[in-house]
């Protein structure tokens, strides 16, 4: 069975600082990997996804993530955060065969302070 771990429940960073949100997964094969953002009282918005190829993927709003097969990780990064990035971020995995169901991590709540 697949699982996703986001070890940091809450992260606080200053505006303009760099950001890394961690995600580790467990799967018998390399899954598809995703990062989603949830703003207050809203649904999910896709930030970026990894299927194969270049381990560094670019997403929207300056976000990028790096896949590491050896570490079973897919950490999210941003060079300079803005206050509007405050939200909850979810890492998710999906198998590339079978039922394609998504398994989500617990989420990391990001707070950007002035």
């Amino acid at each position: 069975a697949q699982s996703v771990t986001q070890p940091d429940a809450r992260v606080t960073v200053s505006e303009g600082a760099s950001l890394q949100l961690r995600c580790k997964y467990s799967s018998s094969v390399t899954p598809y990997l995703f990062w989603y953002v949830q703003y207050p009282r809203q649904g999910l918005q896709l930030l970026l996804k990894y299927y194969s190829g270049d381990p560094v993927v670019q997403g929207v709003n300056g976000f990028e993530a790096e896949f590491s097969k050896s570490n079973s990780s897919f950490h999210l990064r941003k060079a300079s955060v803005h206050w509007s990035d405050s939200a909850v971020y979810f890492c998710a995995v999906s198998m590339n065969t079978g039922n394609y169901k998504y398994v989500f991590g617990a989420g990391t709540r990001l707070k950007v302070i002035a």
Partner: protein
Amino acid sequence: GALVYQYPRRTICKSGTSMRMECQAVGFQATSVAWYRQSPQKTFELIALSTVNSAIKYEQNFTQEKFPISHPNLSFSSMTVLNAYLEDRGLYLCGARWTGGEQYFGPGTRLTVL
């Protein structure tokens, strides 16, 4: 482009009553529809996965008797929360995909149970 709509966006029901929510895929054929629930302060759990021409598969802790799902065509799915109680409150997401494609999420239906 591919879009997923959900109706209603917010709803309130009395404890012990039922509530039906809908999911509509626009711009693609939704061969597979997944329903997820996000309980307050929690992550997203898969309720069930419906694939055209296959039986609906419910995850552990979710049953057809409680969450009956209909997927009558390639653009529409509905799910009913029967006999809703406080623990059923949360955000219900619909994720739709076509064969070989990625999953697109709707904005969710937020259920409040009084």
